[in-house]
Every structure is written in C-alpha cells, then in structure tokens.
C-alpha cells in the first residue's frame, strides 16, 4: 500500500494591539456596541484620506526581526479590489508587491527534536467589518468596528507535516507576539485567524500536490480536526484514483468535514495596483537597529535561564513563562525576596487556579512584585500559615490588596507568643483529660485532637509547630 504525507503551509492573520486603527484614529477596542468605533475613513466615505499609524510599522518590523526575516527597506501598500459589504471602500489596503518583511524562519522544539519553519513573507493590511446573517429577515447586518483594525499576515512556507507541528508553530508564534506586546493573539476574540493550505503526496515525492485552502480557522481544536479531516479526504480521493481540485474550502466543525466554497476558476480577480493614498515606507537602518535592541527575551530563552538562575525545574519554568506577565511577576518578586521556589509555587498552583476559576488573563491580575514579595517574606518568617496565605494571595490577585494591611485588618497574623499559647494549651489539657490519658496510653490520635482544640481556641492563628512543642512539654 502507498504511504502518504501531508504538506501544510499557513497564512496567519494577527490583529495588532494598537490603541487606534491603521489609517484613522478610531479606537480598536473589542466588544463595543456595533458601529461605535467608526469614522468617514474606516467607513470608506469618498474623499476621506487614510494616514498610516506609525506603531503598525514598528510592530511589523519587530515581528519581522523576531521571525528572522529580511526587512524590505522600501516597501509600500497595494489596493486589493473586491466587492463585498465587509469593506465599504470596495477594496482592502494591503501589501502585495513589496511586503514589509521576507524570508524568515521560526524554530521550535518537538518530540522529534527541533523543527524549523520557513517564513515566506509578512505583510501589513487592514481588517474588514463583521457580517451577521439574519435568517429571519433575509438581510445581512454589518458592524464596521473591526474595519481598519491593523493586521499583519504571516505567510509560512509549506514546511509543516502534521497537525502537531501546526499547533506547535502557532503556539510559538503567539508566544512571541504576546511577549513583544504586538498582539494578544486571542483566537476566541478573533485576534488570531488562520488559513490552512494543505495538500498530500506520496511519501518520498518531492513535488507538491494540488492544494486546498481552508479559510478562517479560529481555534486550535478545530485546526487540528480540519487538518486531519481534510488530509484524509484528499488521501481517499487519491486512493480512489481521483484528482484533488485546487479550491477554497470551509471547515464545518459540527459536521467534522470541509465544504467547498469556490474553485480556482471562480477565484476573484483582485486587480491589485499600487495604493496612491498611502505614502511609501522607507526604513532606515537606525529604525531597524532600534527595534532590534528592543526585542524582549523570548519564552524558550527564559525557560533555560529560569532553571539556571532560580534553580526551578523545567516544568515549572515552562508554566511560569506561559505568559510574559507571570514570568515577569515571578522574576521581579524573586529579586525583591530571594525565595524563588515559594514564589513559583504560589504563582503556579494558586495563581493558575485563580485565573481559571475567574476566567481571567494574566494581565488582569492585580498583583505587584512588591506586594507579592511582602507575602513571601511573611510566609518565610512564619508570620502567616499556608492556608491563610493562599486566601490573602487570592485577595491580592483579584483586588490588589496589600498583604500587611489586609492581615492587620482581618487579624490573620500568626500568634507566636509563647506565654499566651501556654495558657491556652493548659486550659485545653484541663478540659480534655480523656485525650490526655489516651495519649499517655500511646494513642497518637489523641494528641492530634489536643492540637486541634488548641488551634481552635486560638482561632487558627497559632503556629502549629509551636503548639506541638508546647503541648508535648506540658503533658
């Protein structure tokens, strides 16, 4: 039987985290009322003059550098004409002939060692509005809040061979982009969308087979299923002696199959031409060097350095660096109070749980390195027990409270007053003669009861190890 391999290339659209749109000063905020963030420019009114947002160029250059691309120092925009209500101008301003960056490379770890994916190009373009199809009224509703939100499109070479590699590549891309602050890459909000170019060929064949393109995927799970489903569909056609058609398809995740949208013959004629409303971009070397210096330390490097500098495990380093916010919080706190294992523990176990329970993103945490280092100090000096520390930590994450103030206000500090503890312990022994005699007869369980009674009498604020010592002395 013949064996086949799947060949995959991706076009990844990423919405940039700018405050304003690419060509006008409308806000890019997500989740506003429909058509609240619009103006004559992003509504394509005749005579409106678009002006390029400089930060978009900064972000695109930085991304190009992070992906090891060559920056195209003289680049410009092109007009892509199409008639569809999601863009009221009837064209999209994009880059075809001179994309801002070309020929890069991304490397990541897989179970089978390092994998390197070529980047064909990276270009800047504007996003389009959102269409809602109202089936009752037989009309389509349009929201132009997204029209003119800046995008970069990252086009890979057909270097991926499996859904696992695709997911690893996307993980790496979104980690790098979030670390740079270029995009939040939230797939569920549509700030990262993926077109999959997929073909199959007999193992050992070096020619590319006919490919299909699956448009607009926005979840890792659906991407995985689409690749597996479409790859199988193509292989089945080949086994039956059929031919794969060069066409655009849509993945229906409910039906778990791809559906034909249009063939190559029906492909649109975009009549691209150089955009005259936007002045060309000339990028001097100084601009590139400046942005190069500003590139952050990325996750893979951090994972290695955290193990070395803070003596934590690779697993811990991986969890802590899953977002730059958590990684920075860990590192800045550990610099203020040198107890990295404790910091790592709290952040990894409690921090991650709090994020999950409250549906928060790391940037929503109201914790500061200063407040967290205070709490770590209090734990270290035995001024607060672990259970209470967790509760305080949660308050710090959600409400930004200061741990010392909070403890004082709610009387959570541990009582280490030997004299006071002795008095309470004596009273407990008097009140529980049965337990005392049981313990003396060798029932260790009875001792636990006495500790529990003492802790209860102290409202849980006593240091349990001190209570242990005192009780043993007194008996």
């Amino acid at each position, binding site marked *: 039987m013949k064996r086949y391999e799947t060949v995959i290339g991706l076009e990844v659209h990423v919405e940039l985290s*700018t405050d304003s749109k690419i060509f006008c*000063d409308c806000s*890019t905020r997500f989740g506003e009322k429909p058509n609240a963030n619009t103006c004559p420019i992003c509504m394509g*009114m005749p005579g409106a003059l678009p002006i390029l947002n400089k930060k978009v*160029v900064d972000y695109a250059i930085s991304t190009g550098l992070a992906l090891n691309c060559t920056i195209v120092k003289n680049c410009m925009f092109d007009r892509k004409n199409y008639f569809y209500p999601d863009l009221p101008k009837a064209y999209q301003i994009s880059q075809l002939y001179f994309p801002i960056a070309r020929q890069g490379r991304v490397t990541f770890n897989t179970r089978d060692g390092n994998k390197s994916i070529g980047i064909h190009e990276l270009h800047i373009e504007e996003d389009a509005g959102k269409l809602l199809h109202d089936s009752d009224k037989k009309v*389509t509703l349009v929201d132009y809040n997204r029209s003119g939100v800046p995008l970069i499109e990252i086009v890979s070479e057909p270097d991926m061979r499996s859904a696992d590699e695709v997911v690893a590549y996307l993980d790496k891309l979104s980690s790098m982009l979030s670390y740079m602050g270029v995009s939040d890459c939230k797939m569920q909000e549509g700030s990262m969308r993926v077109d999959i170019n997929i073909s199959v060929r007999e193992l050992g064949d070096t020619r590319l087979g006919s490919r299909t393109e699956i448009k607009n995927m926005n979840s890792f799970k659906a991407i995985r299923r689409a690749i597996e489903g479409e790859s199988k569909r193509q292989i089945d056609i080949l086994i039956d002696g059929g031919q794969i058609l060069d066409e655009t398809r849509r993945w229906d995740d409910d039906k778990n199959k791809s559906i034909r949208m249009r063939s190559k013959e029906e492909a649109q*004629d975009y009549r691209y031409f150089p955009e*005259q409303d936007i*002045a*060309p971009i000339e990028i001097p070397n100084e601009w590139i060097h400046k942005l190069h210096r500003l590139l952050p330390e990325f996750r893979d490097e951090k994972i290695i350095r955290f193990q070395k500098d803070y003596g934590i495990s690779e697993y811990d380093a991986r969890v802590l660096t899953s977002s730059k916010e958590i990684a920075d919080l860990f590192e800045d706190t550990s610099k203020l109070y040198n107890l990295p294992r404790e910091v790592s523990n709290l952040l990894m176990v409690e921090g991650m749980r709090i994020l999950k329970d409250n549906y928060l993103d790391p940037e929503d945490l109201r914790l500061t390195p200063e407040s967290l280092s205070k709490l770590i100090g209090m734990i270290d000096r035995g001024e607060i027990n672990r259970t209470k520390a967790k509760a305080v930590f949660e308050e710090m994450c959600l409400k930004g409270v200061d741990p010392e103030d909070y403890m004082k206000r709610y009387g959570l500090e541990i009582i280490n007053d030997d004299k006071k503890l002795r008095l309470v312990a004596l009273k407990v022994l008097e009140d529980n003669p049965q337990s005392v005699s049981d313990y003396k007869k060798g029932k260790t369980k009875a001792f636990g009861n006495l500790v529990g009674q003492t802790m209860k009498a102290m409202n849980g604020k006593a240091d349990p190890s001190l209570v242990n010592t005192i009780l043993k002395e007194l008996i």
Partner: protein
Amino acid sequence: MKITKERFNNIADMVKLSLIKEEETKLNKDLNQLLDFIETMNEIDTDDVVPMDYVHSLRNVYREDIATDLSTKEEEHANAPDFMDGYYVVPRILE
C-alpha cells in the same frame, strides 16, 4: 491586444456597470483604442527606467497611535439607506 466581448462583460461586471447595447459598443471601442495607445508606448525601451509606483515624492507619512472619538456616528448612520439596531443593513449575502 483586442478585448473580447466576454472579457469586456467580465470587467463591466466586476465594476458593477450595467450597460445598454449602445454604451457597450461605445465603451468597448474606447477601451480598445486605449489599449492600442498603450501598445504604442510598449515600443519604447524602458529597461533602464525604474518603475514609478508612486506619483508623489512623499515618503513616511505617519500619524501617532492615539485614539480619539470624533462622534460623527449619527451623521454616518443617517447616510445609510437602511440602519437597524446599530447595524448597517444590506441585502442578504451568503458565502
């Protein structure tokens, strides 16, 4: 290069022109004359000429990334032939 009737109709379609017979004949003729003119220009040797892809000498025209609220929304909304519950309404479109 002559534009075929088929290609002519395709272009008219893309730019959303609906033409009557006389207009079609006239425009098709005009278009072909224009192409003849360009054919003549093609005879000039331009191998050493850098293509002009932008007519002005302007370069690097930017705005800073600051969002402001222009509040012209009501005017914009009023411009639309049909507007409902905050949305622009267009004839139903299916992919």
